C-alpha cells in the first residue's frame, strides 16, 4: 500500500501541473491543437488513477482547456468525484470546474444533490461557501427543489459570510423553482434588517431583482425601502433601492411624489456619478409616470437637465454618452427643457466617438422646430461632408431625411430648400440610401403642388448630369435618384422649360448602363416628355421640329429594345411602334400632339397609407379562397412577375409600407379592382411602372410654362441649400419687419382711437410666426370612396391596455361619481306641459335670452365648482371651463340643445354613426318616473365600467307646485337581484334622503346607487318618494309612488370596437344569436342608428349603405354585437351575445324603441 502511494507520487512527479500546461501551450504556438490533444490524452490517464490529488490536478487543467474552447463534458463524472473530495483544496477545484461546465443538460448533475447537501451543512464555512458559489452557476430546477429548504436554513446561519451567500443564491432558486418564493419570502424580508451590512445588501439585491420583474407584488415593501433609502450610506445599496423605486412608481404615483424630494437631495449632494445617474434616471421615470394633472415638477426636470448637461460637458466619454441617453428620455415628455440645450447637442456631433454622435443625432430628431430646422440640417450637411466611413454617413443621411419628413413635413417652411438638400445628398458617393432620397423626391413633388415647377427644373438638371450620379458602378445605390428624377420630369413635363433637352438627356446611350427598373422608368417617361415636346412644337407651328423629335425617338429607342431586361424591352418595343405610327401620321401632316398627350392626361394623387385597409370587403367575397388551384411552391417562385422584371431589393421601398404577405396582396388587389373606376392611380405605394392612364379630356389645359427665375438656381461657390438658408432668413426678417410695421400701425390707430391698451412689443418668434415661403398645398392623400370614417385601425384591438385608454383630464362624468350633493339653480318657473328635461329647458332659454345666458351659465358653474369641494385644483377648473365653453360653441353652431352632462358619454357614438351633418332629432334618455300635482320625477340609469355590479340612477325632481318641498326621501323595495345602496347603518326599510330642497318651480337632480347581481333581465322596483310640502296654508306630508325600471340597455356601456376585433368576436363562435324585425319604419337609417346608439348605448363599428354593425359591452363584460339592416320600410336586427337571455331582452327593448320610429 505504502509502496503504491510512493509509486503514485513518483508518477506525479512527471505529471504536468497547470503551470506546465499553460507554459506548454505557449511554447507550442504552431501546433497548439496537437499539443492539447496530447495533453488531453494524458489527462484521461490521470483521471483513471485513484489518487484524488492527481485527479484534481487533471480537472484543474481541464477547466483551463474548457476556457480555451475545448469540450470537457466527457469528464463530468470525474469532476463530481473531485467535488466530493474531503480536502478543501480539491473540493474547490471540483466546484470551480462544475460551475464552469455544468449546465441543465448535464445528466450526471442529479448525482450531486446529496454531495451538495452534505457540503452545505459542513462545519467549515468555506466548504459551505464553495458549494453555494458553485450551485449559483449550475442550479437546475431539480436541484432547486431538493435544496431549497437547506438553503433557506442557511439564510439564518450564524456566520454572515454564509448568510449573505445563501440570500443571494435564493434568487437563482426562485427563478428555477418559483414555488419556493412564497415560503421563503418572510425570511428574505427579515434579512433586509440584518445587522450585517453585507447580508442586508444581498437581501436588497435579491428583492430588487425580483421586484423589477413583477413590481406590483412588492408595493407593500415601499415604506421599508423608503426607510432604507433615507438611512443607507452604501452607494451600491442605494442604487439598487432607487432602481427598485423606479420600477414601483409607475404603479403608485403617490410614491413618485414622495420620492422626488429625497431624490433631488441626493442629486444635489452625491459625488458618485453612478448614484447621480441612477437618481436622475429614476426622477425622469417618476416624472413620466406622474400624470400631467399633477402639480408641476418643472424644477425637478430643470435640475435633471442641468445635471445631464454637466455630464454631457464632461470630458469623460462615458458620462457624455449616458447624459445623452438620459436626455433622450426627457425629450419624450418634456421636449421644451431639452431644446434649450441644442447648442450642446450639436457640439456632440463633432465628437470623436461614433456612438456619442449617434446618440446626439437621435436627440436632434426630437428637437427640430420650424425655426431651427434649416440651421440643424445645415450643420448635419457639413457633417455629411466631413464624415469618414459610410456607415456613419448613411446614418446621417437617413437622419436628415427623417428629421425633415417627420410628421408630414411639419417643420419645413421652404420646400425649395428641401429639394436642394435632397439634390445635394445625391452627390454622396457610395451610399446605400439612394432609394430613400428618391422616395422623398417623389413624395414631395407629388404632394406639394407648388414645388413641382422647381422640382422639375432640379430634376432635369440631375438627369442632365446623370453621368456624375451614376458614374462609378451599377452597385452605386445613388443612381436610384434617377428613377425619381425621370419620373418627376416625365409626369410634370408641363413645367419643363426645355423638354427637348431633357428628352435628349434621357435618350443618351449611357442610360443603358443603368439598372433595369430605372431604364424602364426612363423609357416610359420619355414618351411623356415626347408628348410635351410635340405639344409645344405644334402650338408654335414648327412641325419640322416636331418631326425631328419623333425621329430622335425612332433613332434612340432601339437601344432599349435590345435591353436584356424584359420590362425595358417590352416597353421600348411598344413605344417604338407607337412612335413609328405617329411618324406616319406626321408625314401626312396630321396634328398628333393632343392625342399623344391624352395618353397621360389626369392627375396622379397619392393614396393614403391606410386607404386599402379601409375599403370594406364586399359581401360574399372570400379573400382566402383560391381563385385557381394553388401552384406548387417552386412554380410560384418562377412565376412571380416581379422577379422577372426587376429584383425586389432594388425597388424603392418606403419605410411606412410594411412587407405584405400574399394574402394581404390578394386582398389589396381585389380592393383595387373594385375601386379602379374612381381612382386608378397608385403611384404612392409602389412606384411600379405599370400605371394605368385614363383618357380624359382637357389636354389643352397643359400649359407650357416659362420658369421665371426670380430665385437663381445656383450660386457659384456655394451649395444651393445654403443659399436658401440665407434667403429664408431674409424672408423671415422681412416678414418680421412687415409684421412689426403692421403692429405699429395698429397701435397707432388704436392710440388714435383712444385705446390705451399697452401692447407688448417684445418679440417672441414662435413657430407659428413663420409663414411658409410658398403657399404650400400639401396634397391630401386620397381615400377610397366608401372608406370608413374611423380611426380605430390605429390601435391594436388586442392591446390589453386598451381598456385603460381613458382621458384623465376630462372632468368626471356623473356616472363615474358617487352621489354627492349638487346645486342646480333653475332661473324661471316652468310650465308643467314642457318636457322636464334640463337640457330642453336650457335650449329654450338660450333662444330667448341669449345675452343673459352666458352670465347665468357662469354663475351656475361657479356654484357647481363650489359644490365639488376643494379637492380640485384651480387649474382643473380652468380646463373644465374651457371645455364647457367649447361645447357651448358647438351647441350654438349646431343649434342643438345643450347636453346634460350625463349624456356626454352616450353622445359620442352618435357622431360615430353620423356621416355628415344631417341634423339629428333631439334625444333624451330621461324618462318619466312619476308625476303628481306637486312634483314630477324623471330618471335615467347609468352604468360605469369601474363598478361591474353598480348602476347609478339620476332622478330629476321638479317642483310643479307653489309649495316649498323639503325633507324629501326616496325609498324602494329591494328585490333579491337589485338593491339600493343605503348609508351605512341604515336598514333596508329606511329611505335615502334627497340632499336638497326644492323651492317652487325649481328642479334638481339627485343620484342613487343600486347594486345589481344579474343583468340579464330587466328589473322593476317599486318605490316611494315622501316629502313635506310647505306653503302659506301650512305643511302637509305627501307621498308619490313610482316604479323604477331598469332596462337591460341601461347596463350597457358604449364601447368603441374596431372592425377587426368585431370580426374576431363574431368568429369566436361562443356567442348565441337572436334576431328581430320591425316593420313600417319611416325615419332615416341614420336616425335609427343614432337612436340605437343613444338609447341602448351601442356604437357603430361599420356602416355600409343601409347595413351597419354595432357593438356594445355590458358592465359585466358581455359582448353584444348587432347587425342592423334596413329593408323597404322595415328594419331587421340580428344580435349576438354571450348571454342569450340578455340578448333577447335587449332586442325586445330595441323593438320598442324602433317601433316608435
Amino acid at each position: 500500500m505504502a509502496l503504491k502511494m510512493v509509486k503514485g507520487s513518483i508518477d506525479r512527479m512527471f505529471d504536468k501541473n497547470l503551470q506546465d500546461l499553460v507554459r506548454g501551450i505557449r511554447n507550442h504556438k504552431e501546433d497548439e491543437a496537437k499539443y492539447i490533444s496530447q495533453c488531453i490524452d494524458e489527462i484521461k490517464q490521470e483521471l483513471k488513477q485513484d489518487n484524488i490529488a492527481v485527479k484534481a490536478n487533471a480537472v484543474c487543467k481541464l477547466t483551463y482547456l474548457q476556457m480555451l474552447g475545448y469540450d470537457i463534458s466527457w469528464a463530468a463524472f470525474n469532476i463530481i468525484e473531485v467535488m466530493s473530495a474531503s480536502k478543501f483544496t480539491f473540493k474547490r477545484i471540483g466546484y470551480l470546474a462544475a460551475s464552469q461546465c455544468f449546465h441543465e443538460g448535464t445528466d450526471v448533475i442529479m448525482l450531486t444533490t446529496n454531495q451538495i447537501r452534505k457540503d452545505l451543512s459542513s462545519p467549515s464555512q468555506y466548504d459551505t461557501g464553495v458549494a453555494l458559489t458553485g450551485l449559483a452557476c449550475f442550479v437546475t430546477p431539480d436541484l432547486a427543489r431538493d435544496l431549497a429548504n437547506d438553503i433557506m436554513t442557511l439564510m439564518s446561519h450564524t456566520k454572515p459570510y454564509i448568510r449573505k451567500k445563501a440570500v443571494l443564491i435564493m434568487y437563482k432558486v426562485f427563478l428555477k423553482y418559483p414555488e419556493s418564493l412564497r415560503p421563503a419570502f418572510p425570511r428574505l424580508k427579515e434579512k433586509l434588517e440584518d445587522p450585517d451590512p453585507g447580508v442586508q445588501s444581498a437581501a436588497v439585491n435579491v428583492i430588487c431583482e425580483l421586484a423589477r420583474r413583477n413590481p406590483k407584488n412588492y408595493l407593500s415593501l415601499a415604506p421599508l425601502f423608503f426607510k432604507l433609502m433615507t438611512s443607507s450610506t452604501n452607494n451600491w445599496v442605494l442604487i439598487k433601492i432607487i432602481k427598485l423605486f423606479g420600477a414601483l412608481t409607475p404603479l403608485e404615483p403617490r410614491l413618485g411624489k414622495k420620492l422626488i424630494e429625497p431624490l433631488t437631495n441626493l442629486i444635489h449632494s452625491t459625488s458618485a456619478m453612478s448614484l447621480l445617474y441612477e437618481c436622475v434616471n429614476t426622477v425622469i421615470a417618476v416624472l413620466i409616470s406622474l400624470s400631467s394633472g399633477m402639480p408641476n415638477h418643472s424644477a425637478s426636470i430643470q435640475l435633471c437637465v442641468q445635471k445631464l448637461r454637466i455630464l454631457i460637458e464632461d470630458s469623460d466619454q462615458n458620462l457624455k454618452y449616458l447624459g445623452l441617453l438620459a436626455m433622450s428620455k426627457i425629450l419624450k415628455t418634456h421636449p421644451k427643457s431639452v431644446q434649450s440645450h441644442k447648442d450642446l447637442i450639436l457640439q456632440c456631433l463633432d465628437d470623436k466617438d461614433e456612438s456619442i454622435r449617434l446618440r446626439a443625432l437621435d436627440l436632434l430628431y426630437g428637437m427640430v422646430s420650424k425655426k431651427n430646422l434649416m440651421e440643424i440640417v445645415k450643420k448635419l450637411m457639413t457633417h455629411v461632408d466631413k464624415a469618414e466611413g459610410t456607415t456613419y454617413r448613411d446614418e446621417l443621411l437617413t437622419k436628415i431625411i427623417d428629421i425633415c419628413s417627420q410628421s408630414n413635413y411639419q417643420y419645413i417652411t421652404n420646400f425649395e430648400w428641401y429639394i436642394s438638400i435632397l439634390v445635394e445628398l445625391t452627390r454622396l458617393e457610395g451610399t446605400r440610401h439612394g432609394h430613400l432620397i428618391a422616395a422623398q423626391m417623389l413624395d414631395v413633388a407629388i404632394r406639394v403642388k407648388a414645388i413641382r415647377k422647381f422640382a422639375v427644373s432640379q430634376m432635369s438638371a440631375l438627369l442632365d448630369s446623370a453621368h456624375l450620379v451614376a458614374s462609378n458602378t451599377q452597385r452605386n445605390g445613388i443612381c436610384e435618384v434617377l428613377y425619381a428624377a425621370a419620373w418627376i420630369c416625365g409626369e410634370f413635363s408641363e413645367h419643363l422649360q426645355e423638354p427637348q433637352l431633357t428628352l435628349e438627356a434621357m435618350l443618351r446611350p449611357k442610360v443603358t448602363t443603368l439598372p433595369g427598373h430605372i431604364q424602364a422608368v426612363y423609357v416610359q417617361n420619355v414618351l411623356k416628355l415626347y408628348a410635351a415636346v410635340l405639344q409645344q412644337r405644334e402650338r408654335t407651328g414648327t412641325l419640322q421640329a416636331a418631326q425631328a423629335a419623333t425621329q430622335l425617338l425612332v433613332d434612340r429607342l432601339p437601344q432599349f429594345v435590345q435591353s436584356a431586361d424584359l420590362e425595358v424591352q417590352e416597353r421600348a418595343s411598344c413605344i417604338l411602334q407607337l412612335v413609328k405610327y405617329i411618324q406616319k401620321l406626321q408625314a401626312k401632316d396630321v396634328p398628333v400632339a393632343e392625342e399623344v398627350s391624352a395618353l397621360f392626361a389626369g392627375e396622379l394623387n397619392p393614396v393614403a397609407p391606410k386607404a386599402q385597409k379601409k375599403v370594406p370587403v364586399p359581401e360574399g367575397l372570400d379573400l382566402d379562397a383560391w381563385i385557381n388551384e394553388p401552384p406548387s411552391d417552386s412554380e410560384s417562385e418562377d412565376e412571380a412577375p416581379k422577379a422577372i422584371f426587376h429584383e425586389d431589393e432594388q425597388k424603392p421601398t418606403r419605410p411606412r409600407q410594411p412587407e405584405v404577405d400574399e394574402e394581404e396582396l390578394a386582398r389589396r388587389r381585389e380592393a383595387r379592382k373594385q375601386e379602379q373606376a374612381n381612382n386608378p392611380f397608385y403611384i404612392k405605394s409602389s412606384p411600379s411602372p405599370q400605371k394605368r392612364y385614363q383618357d380624359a379630356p382637357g389636354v389643352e389645359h397643359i400649359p407650357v410654362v416659362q420658369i421665371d427665375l426670380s430665385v437663381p438656381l445656383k450660386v457659384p461657390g456655394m451649395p444651393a441649400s445654403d443659399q436658401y438658408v440665407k434667403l429664408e432668413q431674409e424672408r423671415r426678417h422681412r416678414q418680421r419687419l412687415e409684421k412689426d410695421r403692421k403692429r405699429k400701425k395698429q397701435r397707432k390707430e388704436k392710440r388714435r382711437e383712444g385705446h390705451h391698451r399697452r401692447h407688448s412689443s417684445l418679440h417672441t418668434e414662435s413657430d407659428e410666426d413663420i409663414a411658409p415661403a410658398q403657399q404650400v398645398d400639401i396634397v391630401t392623400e386620397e381615400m377610397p370612396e366608401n372608406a370608413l370614417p374611423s380611426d380605430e385601425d390605429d390601435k391594436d384591438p388586442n392591446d390589453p391596455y386598451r381598456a385603460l385608454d381613458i382621458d384623465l383630464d376630462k372632468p368626471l362624468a356623473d356616472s363615474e361619481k358617487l352621489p354627492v350633493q349638487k346645486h342646480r339653480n333653475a332661473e324661471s318657473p316652468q310650465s308643467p306641459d314642457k318636457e322636464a328635461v334640463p337640457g330642453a329647458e336650457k335650449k329654450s332659454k338660450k333662444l330667448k335670452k341669449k345675452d343673459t345666458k352666458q352670465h347665468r351659465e357662469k354663475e351656475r358653474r361657479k356654484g357647481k365648482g363650489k359644490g365639488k369641494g376643494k379637492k380640485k385644483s384651480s387649474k382643473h377648473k380652468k380646463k373644465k371651463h374651457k371645455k364647457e365653453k367649447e361645447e357651448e360653441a358647438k351647441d350654438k353652431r349646431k343649434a342643438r340643445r345643450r347636453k346634460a352632462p350625463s349624456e356626454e358619454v352616450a353622445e359620442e357614438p352618435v357622431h360615430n354613426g353620423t356621416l355628415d351633418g344631417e341634423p339629428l332629432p333631439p334625444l333624451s334618455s330621461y324618462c318619466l318616473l312619476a308625476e303628481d300635482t306637486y312634483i314630477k320625477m324623471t330618471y335615467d340609469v347609468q352604468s360605469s365600467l369601474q363598478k361591474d355590479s353598480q348602476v347609478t340612477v339620476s332622478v330629476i325632481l321638479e317642483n310643479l307646485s307653489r309649495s316649498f318641498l323639503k325633507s324629501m326621501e326616496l325609498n324602494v323595495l329591494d328585490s333579491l337581484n337589485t338593491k339600493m345602496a343605503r348609508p351605512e347603518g341604515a336598514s333596508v326599510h329606511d329611505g335615502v334622503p334627497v340632499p336638497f330642497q326644492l323651492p317652487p318651480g325649481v328642479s334638481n337632480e339627485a343620484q342613487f346607487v343600486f347594486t345589481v347581481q344579474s343583468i340579464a333581465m330587466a328589473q322593476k322596483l317599486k318605490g316611494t318618494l315622501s316629502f313635506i310640502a310647505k306653503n302659506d296654508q301650512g305643511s302637509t306630508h305627501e307621498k308619490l309612488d313610482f316604479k323604477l325600471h331598469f332596462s337591460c340597455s341601461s347596463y350597457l356601456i358604449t364601447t368603441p370596437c374596431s372592425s377587426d376585433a368585431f370580426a374576431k368576436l363574431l368568429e369566436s363562435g361562443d356567442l348565441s344569436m337572436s334576431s328581430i324585425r320591425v316593420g313600417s319604419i319611416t325615419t332615416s337609417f341614420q336616425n335609427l342608428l343614432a337612436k340605437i346608439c343613444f338609447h341602448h348605448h351601442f356604437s357603430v363599428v361599420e356602416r355600409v349603405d343601409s347595413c351597419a354593425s354595432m357593438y356594445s359591452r355590458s358592465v359585466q363584460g358581455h359582448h353584444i354585437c348587432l347587425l342592423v339592416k334596413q329593408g323597404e320600410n322595415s328594419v331587421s336586427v340580428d344580435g349576438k351575445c354571450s348571454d342569450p337571455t340578455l340578448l333577447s331582452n335587449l332586442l325586445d327593448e330595441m323593438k320598442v324603441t324602433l317601433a316608435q320610429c
Partner: protein
Amino acid sequence: MQFMLLFSRQGKLRLQKWYVPLSDKEKKKITRELVQTVLARKPKMCSFLEWRDLKIVYKRYASLYFCCAVEDQDNELITLEIIHRYVELLDKYFGSVCELDIIFNFEKAYFILDEFLLGGEVQETSKKNVLKAIEQADLLQEEAETPRSVLEEIGLT
C-alpha cells in the same frame, strides 16, 4: 449581470463567467462576436455599447479587456465600478497584477470573482472582506497541502 469576460488585446479569452445558463455553442458564439466588436472600438470611444437586448460595459486595463453584459435597466456606471473593483481585488491579491498572473493562476482569479459576485449580483462590497475570505480559504488549502509535500519528499528520497 449576465456574464463577464476577460480577454487579451489579441482576442484570447482569459476568463469567462456566465450567470445565465447557455449552451457551450451559444457561449462560444457570443464570446467571438463580442471580442471582435469590442476590439474594433477605438480607444477614445465610450465604454458602453448596445448589443442584442443587452448593454455591454467594458474597460481596458493594460492589455486586458474586462467586459460585462448587463440588462437594459441596469446602471452602466455601477457596472464599470464593479469591473474596477474586481481589478483592484486582483491587484491587491497578486500585488500589481499582470496578465500572466491571471493566466497562470486562473483558478485564483475565479475564486476572487466568486467571492465578489455571486449569481451575477454583488455579494460583498467591502474589499477587505473579500480578500479576507480568500486568504483564509487559501490558508485552509495550504494547511491541507503541507502534509502532501512532505509525502512527496519522502517519495523523492
